[in-house]
């Protein structure tokens, strides 16, 4: 049990050797220009399989854009240089991609008139064919993901009636109903209070450890990024500054150079934390 609760930091260190093998997502020399502005400059990055990876960086650094580019929502020059599970993004059919990868946007539209169960069933969409009856399998999966995300008691509630934390768990349940190997989230904790933030982070950690789910997300909170990720990539002004293990990446120099704040980073403790002391 103790082993199980071991911090993600040590967890990653133990598996250091496996990280470079067969990444979940690979990006090679990708650039993006929107209008006059170049948003991403020649980015190359590999997201390790079976790990939790976070993208961090100041506002407007291009981390959300990079996230959307990696999953094919934004068309990039060199798109054929992006691959997911060793297959080029170009060679995926839309529904096949949805079976290996699920995406949770930062603030999804809230369906006015849908119950939790109906929404989670939408996650089965990539598997449904009008000539096939998938009802039984769909039901099994939906029941399972409602249990995993502890939303079973909410299944008959309408989405708008849920609290922020509940809603986020339900969206994750819908994403899990796609039975993905890779879950991609854009700032999943932004609009939540601290308790529900940690609840979501713990859920993601549990999914990663118990189900072997690869998690890739953008996070704002540096301490959370440090505590929960196995791997980290830092962006600034559309450029990849550094990537690697959190305890190597998260340094006082990084806080100054990238985030323009004074602070200290403590990784001696199992969890690790970032303490910000003031503006630069």
């Amino acid at each position: 049990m103790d082993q199980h609760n071991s911090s993600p930091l040590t967890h990653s260190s133990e598996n250091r050797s496996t990280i470079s093998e067969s990444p979940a997502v690979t990006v090679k020399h990708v650039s993006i220009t929107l209008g006059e502005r170049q948003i991403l400059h020649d980015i190359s990055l590999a997201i390790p399989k079976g790990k939790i990876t976070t993208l961090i960086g100041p506002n407007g650094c291009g981390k959300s854009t990079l996230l959307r580019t990696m999953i094919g929502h934004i068309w990039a020059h060199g798109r054929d240089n992006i691959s997911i599970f060793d297959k080029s993004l170009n060679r995926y059919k839309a529904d096949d991609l949805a079976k290996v990868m699920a995406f949770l946007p930062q603030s999804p539209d809230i369906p006015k008139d849908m119950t939790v169960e109906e929404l989670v069933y939408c996650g089965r969409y990539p598997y449904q064919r009008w000539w096939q009856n998938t009802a039984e399998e769909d039901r099994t999966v939906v029941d399972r993901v409602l249990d995993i995300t502890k939303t079973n008691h909410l299944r008959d509630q309408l989405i708008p009636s849920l609290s922020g934390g509940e809603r986020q768990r339900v969206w994750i349940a819908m994403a899990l109903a796609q039975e993905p190997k890779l879950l991609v989230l854009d700032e999943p904790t932004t609009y939540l209070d601290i308790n529900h933030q940690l609840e979501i982070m713990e859920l993601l950690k549990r999914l990663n450890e118990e189900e072997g789910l690869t998690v890739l997300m953008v996070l704002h909170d540096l301490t959370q990024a440090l505590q929960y990720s196995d791997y980290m990539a830092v962006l600034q002004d559309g450029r990849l500054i550094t990537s690697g293990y959190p305890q190597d990446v998260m340094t006082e120099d990084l806080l100054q150079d990238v985030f323009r704040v004074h602070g200290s980073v403590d990784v001696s403790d199992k969890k690790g934390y970032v303490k910000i002391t003031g503006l630069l």
Partner: protein
Amino acid sequence: MKQVSNRKVYRFSVLIILCALLLGSMIISLVFGSTSVSLVDIWHTLWSDELTDAGAQIIWNIRLPRNIVAALVGACLAVSGAILQAVMKNPLADPQIVGVSSGAGLMGVIILILFPGYDYLVPMVAFLGAMGAALMVYALAWKNGIRPSRIILAGVAVSAFLGSGISALLVFFGDRVQGALLWMVGGLAARSWPQVEVLFPYAMVGLALACLGAKRLTILSLGDETAKGLGLNVEQTRFSMTAVAALLAAGAVSIAGLIGFVGLVIPHILRLIIGNDYAYLLPGSALLGAFVLVISDTVGRVAMSPIEIPVGIIMAFFGAPFFLYLLRRDG
């Protein structure tokens, strides 16, 4: 679990009730008119092979086909509106407001006035006009995504632009406008079996395609990013469903002219009753649209008899205030 199945039962019962209402409205509309016909006579007429008297003639050759045309037109416009609202992410979308009807109208008038020998082409050409107008509105409103207010503004502009084209044609070819004018006014007077034959295939194909796309529309209503993440080809869905909406609108417009507000009001009433699941919303809209148009047409025939009020006027009379109500509510 239980409650969800209750939701299904509830939604299904709404559809059944709508079926009953539609049937009832069609019977009522057979009975009432400048001459009243008894239910017994109607029954005999429907099931006999010969049209024995004047009453039977009225039922079989005038009221019944007109009824069917009204129901089909109502169903087409309502479903077209429901689809456009989903595709354009806009609660105020409607074939007339976003210019689809004007597109169909302009092309129809061009055929009727400039190529009078090719009447049979009207529905097909009207479809092209409707599709062209929809794409034009979409292209004009597209700027880093779709914003509801821009759709309406672009729609009004396109509608006015195409409408001026129609007016110009009517002015320049004043000697030939008779047929076109009758068609333009929008109404169901003198619609009979030939119109049923033209409209029926369009309506059936359009409604079937719409229902096949219902699931995709529901996924689309979750928002573009979520829909993409679920493996829906968002742009292709938009395009193909717009085509279906244009087909339905064109079918209706080429038979009944420009009838507004059906496509706006009906899906909205139904959303309040049955919710946003397109698997129920689309068939429900078809039934309610058919019902409302049959009733409105009957009122138009009977209210100021012997003068007939075109059904387009009745729809605008009730629909316009409802549109304003929606505009205020959705801000």
